[in-house]
């Protein structure tokens, strides 16, 4: 009797082990099949997945012999994927290509020697002409380019609720000329009874707002200089920006700390706030709420940043040691082609990196963005990995979050100076 119980327990335990061992591995790489490309992204749901599917459709048309192997990792807005990717790269088991934000976020990978230089790819495929010159500048580090952008988002967009502004006697069609003018308008809104003129959310949205203010107060060239050390962080330009940012914080919702960006945007959608500064993926929120451009809402370049396009881009790389390099290059060709970019961006709500895109194909907001991208000066977004590598932006994020609590401008500036010096060495 007792022996039976013992063997019963042992049997169940053994069965459990076997069952667990049988669970399928989550990453299936079939290196036997040479004509496949493993594409590693965090586009596992929502409009991003729709975009990826559209891209795959074009890829299958252009390269019918190559099989697409989807290695998307969900969760954490990419942080889970980045963690998984770091493990794979360290174990010398890279995917054929992986998604990353174009720009400085790639610095870590480049420094570790994990990415291949794509300058010749750009030359061979005419990308140096197809992409705007200022974008190529931002993508080039030490004379080399390490990724191919599939889509461009703009981060210096202010979303405006038309009726809230009109009720307070502000003209929603004309953007204020600079920060001071905008702050005056915000005050006007507040005086007219709107308790939250400007809505704001958690740390990265705060970082994005500060970046907009920095661009407005420093201008494109000096702002870009922050990231290579030519513009001092303790200079007068930054001091003005910090001061303006502090003033803006007086007009935001009291529960902004830890509030998701879409919950913050909801205040504008519901008419509880007049403005929100957000990247243009917010377009999806307005579309979903059934609002129409120039009827219920409109957009401007954030006051003071007119003529500047604050870019962030999803892009694809070519890792060193990619198992199927030819197939990976095929994939890169697709995403940089006119058809590929059109399919992807219409589905995802962003705009193509190519200047030969036909604006009429795209919805109303995107048309304004396309026009701006082709005419304006392009600068890199801090909040989205284009301007600064991961650890630098993490340090800044924490300092900005702290500023939200204690409003100590001097502490913020010294923290930013310290972050810059530890990042730039």
């Amino acid at each position: 009797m007792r022996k039976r119980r013992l063997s019963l327990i042992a049997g169940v335990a053994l069965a459990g082990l076997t069952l667990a061992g049988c669970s399928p591995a989550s990453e299936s790489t079939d290196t036997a099949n040479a004509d496949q490309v493993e594409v590693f992204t965090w586009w596992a749901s929502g409009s991003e997945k729709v975009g990826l599917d559209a891209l795959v459709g074009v890829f299958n048309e252009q390269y019918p012999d190559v099989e697409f192997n989807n290695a998307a990792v969900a969760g954490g807005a990419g942080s889970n994927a980045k963690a998984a990717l770091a493990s794979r790269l360290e174990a010398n088991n890279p995917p054929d290509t992986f998604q990353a934000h174009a720009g400085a976020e790639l610095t870590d990978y480049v420094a570790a020697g994990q990415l291949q230089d794509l300058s010749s790819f750009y030359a061979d495929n005419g990308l140096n002409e197809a992409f705007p010159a200022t974008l190529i500048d931002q993508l080039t580090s030490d004379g080399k380019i390490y990724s191919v952008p599939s889509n461009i988002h703009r981060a210096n967009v202010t979303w405006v609720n038309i009726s809230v502004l009109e009720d307070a006697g502000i003209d929603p069609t004309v953007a204020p000329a600079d920060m001071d003018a905008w702050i005056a308008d915000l005050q006007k809104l507040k005086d007219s009874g709107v308790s939250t003129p400007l809505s704001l959310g958690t740390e990265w949205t705060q970082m994005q707002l500060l970046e907009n203010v920095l661009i407005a107060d420093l201008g494109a060239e000096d702002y870009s200089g922050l990231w290579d050390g030519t513009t001092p962080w303790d200079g007068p330009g930054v001091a003005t920006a910090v001061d303006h940012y502090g003033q803006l914080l007086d007009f935001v919702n009291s529960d902004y700390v830890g509030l998701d960006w879409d919950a913050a945007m909801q205040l504008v959608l519901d008419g509880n706030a007049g403005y929100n500064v957000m990247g243009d993926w917010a377009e999806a929120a307005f579309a979903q709420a059934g609002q129409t451009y120039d009827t219920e809402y409109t957009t401007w370049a954030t006051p003071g940043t007119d003529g500047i396009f604050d870019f962030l881009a999803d892009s694809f790389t070519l890792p060193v040691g990619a198992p199927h390099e030819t197939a990976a290059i095929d994939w890169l060709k697709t995403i940089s082609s006119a058809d590929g970019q059109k399919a992807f961006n219409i589905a995802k709500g962003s705009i193509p990196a190519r200047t030969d895109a036909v604006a009429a194909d795209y919805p109303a907001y995107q048309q304004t963005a396309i026009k701006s991208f082709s005419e304006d000066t392009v600068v890199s977004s801090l909040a989205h990995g284009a301007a600064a590598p991961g650890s630098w932006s993490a340090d800044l994020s924490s300092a900005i979050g702290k500023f939200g609590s204690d409003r100590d401008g001097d502490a913020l500036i010294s923290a930013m100076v310290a972050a810059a010096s530890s990042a730039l060495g």
Partner: protein
Amino acid sequence: MRKGVRNWGPPLLLVSPTIIILGIFVYGLIAANIQVSTTNRHSLSPESDFVGLENYVALLNEDRFLHSLFNLVMFTVVFIAGTMLFGFIWAWMLDKGVSAEGIFRSVYLFPMAISFVASGVVWRWLLNSAEGDRASGLNRIFESLGLGFLQNAWWNEPIWGMAAIAMPAIWQLSGYVMALFLAGFRGVPQELREAARMDGASEWKLYRYVVFPQLSPIALSALIIVSHMSLKVFDLIMSITGSIYQTEVPATYMWVTLTSNDYAKSATIATILLLLASLFIIPYLIQTWRSEKANR
């Protein structure tokens, strides 16, 4: 105890897999962690040099880390006070035997079954900081009950914010402390209580001078368990606020540094956490060992 390999060989052999496994996965990995913390590997590149205690010195002088320690202390104090208080009160109330004691006990205990992630989903909403018109969660209920003055920013409060985060933790673990104390209460021999009653002691005096003193070993155990859980708190904070400055504790700071590929710094933070935990654990382990020896 009988001498001879034939007598102690088999038991030692039986427990040796555990010894070896823990030797590697606890002690070995701790050593590996300490080793990484003494290097300067702050990026994806595998090259690193030995830098001694440089990372520790830097961290202990860093405002951000000190702030996270402050948050941790605040959280721990409130968490311990809350669970001990409620656990004790519930156990005391249930000690004398009430009808449906089983139901009360089960209700107080069940939050323990829920994961911090799941409870974070609802507490995030309950502790929402919006006040007045846009209030939801607890603020809204205060408003409707006419207790509007109780509305506050919860975990957004500058100094006391972490006390709000302790609330879900208290909710989940008070039942467990209650079970421990109830065991303690029931463990006081009836004869002792009878004797005290016969000596004319009132119920209150009975509790104060007979029962409570017997509870001190339990209180100590509960204190140790609850405080070591509090040092580890990670899931709850990630689930309620994500990793932001206001609610940063060493454990979440470590997550941030690891995802920024700063291996040395995250190892340093982890080692400091271990040292803090050891302040509690080691005295307790020594005491356990001594009392075991005394009992042989």
